[in-house]
């Protein structure tokens, strides 16, 4: 059994139990043991990086130190957490001067970044620890009828110089993992483009216009659902459709489904075990096709 320190972050435990639940169920079924460590904090994402980059690096590094002390690699669900932690891990491993600067701050809390652990997104765990072949063998309910518009979110891929997850212009991993469940991963216009989520709260109208584009493009391509990995993308596109309804007087009813939910369903987890009431846009048409 492979064991990871699960980094939950802020948004998933506070707002999206359907994500946490489906991810825990699926990963456990696939033989991945998840350990919840004490004292983990916010990952220090873009809103905090906007206030102070040095502080953000130190907070991210502090969380990595907790995993180092527990002798575990980190797995994240949220792509935002993945970006903050993986970026920090790479920077501090490779830039000695920066590592010393951050370690000086961390010495105030009795920590030292050593750089002997990895930060992985759970898709990497599926690719590397489980493997596509094993994943295919584990599927009991193939999603053969489902056309999925994959949307990884920006921070799984970019900045690629530090995250090194996949080709930033022609990524394959997420689509491969969707197709491993039997579903068809379809192309749609501006597939890799941002959802605008980080502008929510500052420029809601701009954020909503960008989100609307995503929904329109996936709808025009004939998708049964958009599959997400990031809780902010999920919120922006799911709750976003309620806002589009009131601002644009348009109704799309495009189900937004976290990949972990599709994964759980294909592994035979019953829908009633998955907290699906946390979806604003109902996902019945997805469930019908799953059968």
């Amino acid at each position: 059994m492979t064991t990871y320190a699960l980094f939950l972050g802020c948004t998933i435990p506070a707002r999206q139990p359907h994500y946490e639940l489906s991810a825990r169920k699926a990963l456990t079924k696939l033989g991945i043991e998840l350990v919840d460590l004490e004292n983990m904090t916010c990952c220090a994402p873009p809103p905090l990086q906007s206030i102070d980059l040095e502080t953000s690096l130190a907070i991210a590094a502090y969380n990595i130190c907790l995993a180092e002390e527990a002798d575990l690699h980190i797995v994240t669900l949220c792509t935002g957490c993945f970006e903050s932690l993986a970026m920090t891990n790479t920077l501090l491993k490779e830039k000695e001067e920066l590592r010393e600067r951050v370690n000086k701050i961390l010495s105030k809390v009795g920590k030292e970044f050593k750089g002997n652990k990895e930060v992985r997104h759970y898709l990497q765990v599926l690719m590397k620890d489980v493997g596509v072949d094993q994943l295919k063998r584990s599927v009991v309910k193939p999603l053969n009828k489902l056309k999925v518009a994959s949307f990884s979110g920006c921070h799984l891929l970019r900045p690629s110089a530090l995250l090194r997850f996949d080709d930033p212009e022609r990524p394959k991993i997420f689509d491969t993992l969707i197709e491993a469940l039997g579903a068809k991963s379809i192309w749609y216009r501006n597939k890799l483009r941002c959802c605008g989520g980080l502008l929510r709260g500052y420029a809601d109208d701009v954020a909503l216009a960008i989100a609307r584009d995503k929904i329109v493009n996936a709808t025009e391509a004939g998708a049964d659902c958009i599959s997400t990995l990031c809780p902010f993308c999920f919120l922006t596109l799911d709750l976003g459709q309620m806002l589009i309804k009131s601002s644009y007087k348009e109704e799309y009813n495009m189900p937004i489904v976290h990949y972990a939910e599709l994964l759980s369903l294909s592994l035979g987890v019953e829908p009633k075990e998955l907290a699906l009431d946390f979806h604003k846009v109902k996902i019945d048409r997805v469930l019908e096709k799953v059968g």
Partner: protein
Amino acid sequence: MMAQEKTSTTDFTKEITSRMGGETITYCYQCGTCASSCPVAKTTERYNPRQIIRLALLGLRQDVIAGDAIWLCASCYQCQERCPQKVEIADVIYALRNIAIREGNIPNIYAEFAAGITSEGRIVPISKFLEKKRADYGLPPLKPTGVEAVKKILSATGFDKIMFKKGESQ
């Protein structure tokens, strides 16, 4: 006058390049690949990354850091990925925001995030409703956050004082 303008250009460029994230701004040759890759620039005229960099390199400090544009970057990094000059544009925007915030220009939403991390170690608080829902679904109780460690880190970097300054300016 000319000499003074030149000095101010150099000073602001120096201020940016000496900050974490701002180091690469001077590599820009204004090709506009950033703006043509930007989802926000396609949506609103309020934001154009190429223009922000040009204004900054011209030394128009106030226009950049007191303005609205730097807050409209969605941090999607598409510009940075594609920049032929390897300007780390999204990181430059962070550096500009870091400077702006030190001058008391902090949008409310960012002040809220800062308050969350300072008081609870997380930027989204967990409600009683969610705690109960979690238990109903069989999710494990959440472990305590290392908020005390976070507070010490914020004090070591001076982050806590940045927020204090915001209080003074109001």
